[in-house]
C-alpha cells in the first residue's frame, strides 16, 4: 500500500459560532493567498478550526494582522493511493503503540486519498516513532 506520512504544523483557532464566520475566515485566507493543505471546522462550544497551511509563517502573519490568536499543534498528514483498507496500516501502527487517536479526517478522489490524524500532544513523539518518521 503506497502512502507517505508527514508530521506537520497545524494551526488551530476558536471562532464565534455564527452564520458567515467560516466564510469570513476563508475569504481572509484567500485574499492573503494562504494555501491550505487542509481545513477542518467543527462546531463544539463555539467553532474550532484546524488548518494545515503550506506556509505557516504567512498564516501567522495574517493572523497577527487580523488580531486573531492562533495556537499551533502537530498533526500527521497522510497521502496515498486510494484502495480498500487504505487507512488500516496507519491506524494499526498507532493502535499497536497504544496511542489513542484523537481525530481522523480522510477524503478520497481520483484514485488518491489524504488523511489527517491528530493525537494528544504528549503522544506526538511516540506516534511519530510508531509511524517510522521519528
Amino acid at each position: 500500500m503506497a502512502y507517505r506520512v508527514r508530521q506537520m504544523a497545524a494551526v488551530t483557532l476558536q471562532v464565534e459560532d455564527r452564520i458567515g464566520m467560516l466564510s469570513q475566515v476563508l475569504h481572509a485566507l484567500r485574499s492573503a493567498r494562504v494555501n491550505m493543505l487542509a481545513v477542518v471546522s467543527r462546531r463544539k462550544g463555539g467553532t474550532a478550526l484546524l488548518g494545515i497551511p503550506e506556509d505557516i509563517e504567512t498564516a501567522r502573519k495574517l493572523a497577527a494582522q487580523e488580531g486573531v490568536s492562533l495556537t499551533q499543534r502537530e498533526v500527521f498528514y497522510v497521502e496515498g493511493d486510494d484502495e480498500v483498507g487504505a487507512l488500516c496500516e496507519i491506524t494499526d501502527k498507532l493502535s499497536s503503540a497504544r496511542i489513542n487517536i484523537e481525530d481522523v479526517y480522510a477524503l478520497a478522489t481520483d484514485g488518491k486519498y489524504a488523511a489527517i490524524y491528530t493525537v494528544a500532544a504528549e503522544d506526538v513523539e511516540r506516534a511519530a516513532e510508531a509511524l517510522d518518521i521519528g
Partner: protein
Amino acid sequence: MEYTIRQVTAMIMQVEDKVGVLARVLEVLRQGGVDMVAFASQRRRGTALMAIPNDLNTLRELASDHGMSLSERQVFVVQGEDGVAALSEIAKRVAEAGINIEDVAAMSVGGTYAAVFTFADADLMAAAEAMGLEWPDEFWSSEPAD
C-alpha cells in the same frame, strides 16, 4: 474555478473511546471490501465515526452482519480545484442563505481538493438550494416540520 458538489448519504456510528477501536472498525470495513469517499472519526463523548461509502448497501449489510448500529445522514461532498477559493465561495453562498455550517473537512488530495460539508437536518434543503442542487424527492422526509 471548477468544482462539483454532490449530496451523498453518510453512515454514522458511535463507538467506545479506547485504544484500538478505530483499528478494529477499519479492519472490518477492509475485510468487507467497503470503499469509501470519506471517513472521519471524532472524539466527542465517545467516538463518533462517519463513513461515506461508494456503495451504501455493502456497508449496510456489513453493519447488519456485525451487529453494528448505524444511523444515516445527508452530507455534501465537494471535489475540484483551487481549494480555499472553492471553499470560500461555497461558504459565502451558504452564509448568504442564512445557514450555519455544522462541520467541514477539506483537504488537498493528489493535486485536487475534496471536502465534506455537514449541516443540521433542518437546514439541508436550504443548503442544497444555496449550493445550486436540487433536493431529491426521496429525501423530502428530511424537510423540517412547520
